[in-house]
């Protein structure tokens, strides 16, 4: 505990880390949002069908 606190205290300007992390979070999220909404349709379709691309031979027998 002490070791961790001491190590952290030695970092200059460590107080700003949490704020930076909040900003990184927010910016990253905006970018992911943008990427997703502008994503290529074919890619999305391909990904969507990934679990299903094998012929289901005995699926509907249940």
């Amino acid at each position: 505990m002490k070791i961790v606190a001491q190590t952290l205290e030695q970092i200059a300007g460590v107080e700003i880390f949490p704020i930076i992390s909040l900003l990184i979070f927010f910016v990253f999220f905006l970018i992911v949002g943008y990427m997703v909404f502008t994503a290529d349709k074919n890619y999305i379709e391909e990904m969507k069908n990934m679990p299903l691309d094998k012929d289901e031979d005995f699926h509907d027998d249940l």
Partner: protein
Amino acid sequence: MELQKFTYDNKLSKMFLYATVLWGIVAMLVGLTAAFELIFPKMSGGISWLVFSRLRPLHTNAAIFAFVGNSIFLAVYYSTPRLLKTPMYSKALGCIHFWGWQFIIVLAAVTLPLGFTQSKEYAELIWPIDVLVVIIWVVFGLNLIMTMVKRRVKHIYVAIWFYIATWVTVAVLYIVNNLQIPTSFLHSYPVYAGIQDALVQWWYGHNAVAFFLTTPILGMMYYFVPKAANRPVYSYKLSIIHFWALIFLYIWAGPHHLLYSALPDWAQALGVVFSIMLIAPSWGGMINGLLTLRGAWDKVREDPVLKMFVVAITAYGMSTFEGPMLSLKTVNALSHFTDWTIAHVHIGTLGWNGMMAFGMIYWLVPRLYKTKLWSVKLANTHFWIATLGMLFFSIPLYFAGFTQALMWKEFTEEGFLAYPNFLETVTQILPMYYLRAFGGTLYFTGAILFVVNVWNTASSGKFVRYEEDEAAAKHAPKAGEGWHRKLEGKPLQFTVAALIVILIGGLIEIIPMYLVKTNVPTITSVQPYTPLELEGRDIYVREGCYLCHSQMIRPFRNEVERYGEYTKAGETVYDHPFQFGSKRTGPDLAREGVKSLPNYKPDSWHYNHMLDPQKMNAESIMPPYPWLIENDLDYTNIESKISVMQSFGVPYDSYLNGQDPVEAMQAQAAQIAQGLRSGGIDVDDNKEIIALIAYLQRLGTDLYSE
């Protein structure tokens, strides 16, 4: 394009499937026993390893890590090779993972009832087992990541992102929360104390729910729901947003377990805000799961697999709505420490985790054995019994929670507590405990039907160990692809990215807590525990007292009136580990030792109460702890315990002032035992009960000694 042939090996899927079924039954049976023990407190018959407070950690650990854990590994070992078009990287690593995990479960099942515990909820396992968990977890991760490296497909399906996020986050959480220094082979103290320990624990505890009971199950959902419905997921875009938002937001929400506690307000506020924001991705996920079934609702009527998935996803939606509501301070003021929490988590485990596991296994067994499900009718019966069982379990507990909280808070017109005797509020809700046990019995009965069905299905077919498949050789990444798609193409980098994401959330909570000294104001009258009290405290931890008794008086009029001055962060600075508790089946004990408060009990009362609680309060539901009176106190480890405490900065040098810890213990024990003997109780100085009494009588007194 060249097509490569390869085979999937179903052996590990089969092994994890049987482990899921077996441990599911064990976890439910232990839970059911615990539920009955709350109604029949003498049921444990004075046998230490059967008492509620030792079985409860076994129940939670078995449900989470054994039942749900094995179901997760089943999903991972079945779906990952099929999504990546390659067998798992290493059969040997898979086998080590399987047997290592089962060995850990067996060790847990032995150590927890014997009282070897760290007392942190869902992190109770003692340090040697923790080390083993980390090793096995690394083996699992290595196998998973290397399978991703070896894959034949270009992009990685979202289910696997959830698996990877699970792996990374659980590793970080588990290691950080279990940082401790051993005092012996079976015992250790956490490096954190009091409020900091509580913050780290609930950062872990909340994220154990998030990253062990939620994200991997979402991976399961994104693979098995489309499979069972035979149609793709409703929105793949939504699943990406769901993924990133969820792993970002979850990691910040932990402090909502410590509302109104001695935790600084900024940390509480942070926990609340992020918990509320969690509704969005959680409901996005629920909607995505349910809408995957659009156009297939006719099938839902007949197919027990889809029915179970629908209830599971609905339960996910309900509990992820309820969770944020419970994080609102006003709601939490009512719900915290009551059975409301128990009801909430069981919607999650019985509904979301249980139904997903059952649905997945009902879908898988016929495929692994190339046959049909033995009885669709029986599976449908299981579905109905399990759903009713879940409701019979939870609804009475919601009612119990409201009722008890309102009774705790009620004042008479004259300004006194309407129910000053805690026990009155317990007997009032006891009928609800009967109904809960009935609900649990129903759910368990359903699980027995499940075992019969799985067994007969497997017996009616022949196990298909290898399945052939073919796919094009691995693509090289093309130039001009989006960065996210490139990132997915690189599993190691993707893992690191997910790690950074969750660390960011962890940092914002933990860095300020470590640094800002004003977060934990010093109280000069707060002193370390005497060696005898420290031993007594370790007995308190061993018996799991924290599972029914909190040590955290919240700053409410009714709590201050009932229990005394509210708990300050500075009072907990020597508490390795913290003992705030999360449930009040019995009263709070934070100020148990303060003589001027109404709850104070003399030493002799505690002695008789441990021996036979019903003799002191006929309606009490506390089980007896007679072994505390018979067992000799172990003096052998006290020096190493004190020296570990000193390494944390607990000022034993000045406190003991050169006195030998063993001598200090004996002197204090002799004094307490003498007091008991003069009251007509025949007791030796060196019994465990003496240490426990010493600890109980110390609780909360420092603040009053000023």
